[in-house]
């Protein structure tokens, strides 16, 4: 039961109120710590972890409104659920608390049954939020998770210089048809694990996975000094990891896994798209489209890694590449110079 055994901080300047609220919480199986005003409460919140805050409004030194304002601007404490418990008069005060991020408002004297329900709901919401954060951490790198956290999952974007990468498995559809579904899922999981390691190892961020394909961004949300080189190095690592995987004993007799990678650099719009409930970090722009086209083109030209001219220029002499000449892509007005990165080298 998630609402059992939570740690709550009760903030109230009045001793009778503090004792009564603490008693209610303890009867519900929670632990309650007490603070007699907002300043003391903030000190405690910054010192030790709490699951929920029960906050009075009318208090000397620092009142509940000021506490809510402080919490809102504090990155560490912003997500702490707050239930306001007050006998304050006037609907505008209630509205103000909710606007400042309070989860709920209970009028004093607090009905213990109502209190229990609200605490249960708040803790459940916090659990879901923590779970969402955990998911973000799992599916994005620490940098993205922190960036999302810092920006409060703010939707909207900014223009950045970045490198986009697309990758997918050659002949995946026929491979999937020839083996049981469990084997396909296992293969995909191994593939993704390897690709994630290679990409995040070079500072990139995987932001999309569809079937056997993935999209990664280098240089956003956090700037990278040399996003083009990072992406090319990640691509070389990916090819190397796939080679190692193919040579594993339990892969013997099975068709080798092969991937194609397209890389392009340029100015892109990066940001979170979606809704507050479900958002994903993404990039849009010419470089993104071009990287996708280059990835598809790897099949045509029979090379594993293709880049555009901008990426080729960015890596320069550090990397051996073969100029394949210009190709015409759907959605591109003019021909595009393509470069095949020679596998098995380090930048």
């Amino acid at each position, binding site marked *: 039961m998630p609402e059992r055994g939570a740690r709550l901080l009760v903030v109230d300047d009045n001793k*009778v*109120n503090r*004792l009564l609220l603490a*008693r*209610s919480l303890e009867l519900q199986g929670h632990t309650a710590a007490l603070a007699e005003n907002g300043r003391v409460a903030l000190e405690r919140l910054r010192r030790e972890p709490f699951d929920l805050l029960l906050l009075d409004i009318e208090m*000397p030194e620092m009142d509940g409104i000021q506490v809510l304002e402080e919490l809102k601007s504090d990155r560490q404490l912003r997500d702490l659920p707050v239930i306001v418990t007050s006998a304050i008069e006037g609907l505008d005060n209630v509205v103000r608390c909710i606007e400042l991020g309070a989860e709920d408002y209970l009028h004093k004297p607090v009905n*213990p049954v109502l209190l229990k329900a609200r605490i249960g709901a708040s803790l459940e919401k916090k659990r879901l939020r923590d779970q969402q954060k955990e998911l973000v951490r799992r599916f994005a790198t620490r940098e993205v998770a922190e960036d999302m956290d810092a920006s409060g999952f703010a939707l909207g974007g900014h223009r950045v210089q970045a490198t986009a990468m697309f990758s997918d498995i050659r002949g995946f559809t026929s491979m999937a048809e020839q083996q049981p579904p469990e084997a396909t899922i296992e293969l995909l999981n191994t593939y993704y694990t390897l690709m994630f390691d290679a990409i995040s190892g070079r500072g990139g961020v995987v932001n999309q996975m569809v079937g056997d394909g993935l999209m990664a961004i280098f240089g956003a949300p956090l700037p990278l000094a040399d996003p083009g080189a990072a992406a090319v190095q990640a691509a070389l690592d990916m090819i190397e990891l796939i080679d190692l995987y193919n040579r594993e004993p339990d892969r013997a007799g099975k068709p080798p896994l092969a991937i194609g990678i397209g890389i392009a650099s340029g100015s892109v719009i990066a940001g979170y798209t979606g809704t507050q409930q479900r958002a994903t970090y993404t990039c849009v722009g010419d470089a993104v489209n071009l990287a996708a086209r280059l990835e598809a083109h790897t099949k045509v030209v029979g090379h594993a890694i293709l880049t555009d001219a901008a990426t080729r220029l960015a890596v320069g002499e550090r990397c051996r590449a073969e100029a394949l000449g210009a190709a015409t892509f759907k959605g591109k007005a003019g021909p595009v110079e393509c470069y095949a990165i020679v596998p098995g080298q380090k930048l």
Partner: protein
Amino acid sequence: MTTAIDAARFAELQATAGADFVVELIDTFLHEAPGLLAELRAARAAGDADGYRRAAHSLKSNANTFGATALGAQAREIELAGLGEPAADAARITALEAEYARAALALGELRDA
């Protein structure tokens, strides 16, 4: 004269918080309330509108916890009115103190019952 404590509200408090705990809570209130009344008077004398409202607010909140309905209503009136004409405020505080004495007596009896 009506009773100072609403029996139903008080019984509800005992049922939800436990009778033993309510004894402790009454002691705390009887210990704290005279200070709040003194704060109210002092705030009135100093013309401290915030302190005045806050003391009345606290008394209201505590009174309602125990079912001291009349005390709660008087404290609420003072909270909502805020600082006013000194003589009228003083009369209100005097009436509040009288009601508190009545509620304290009743709570003391309930505690020892």
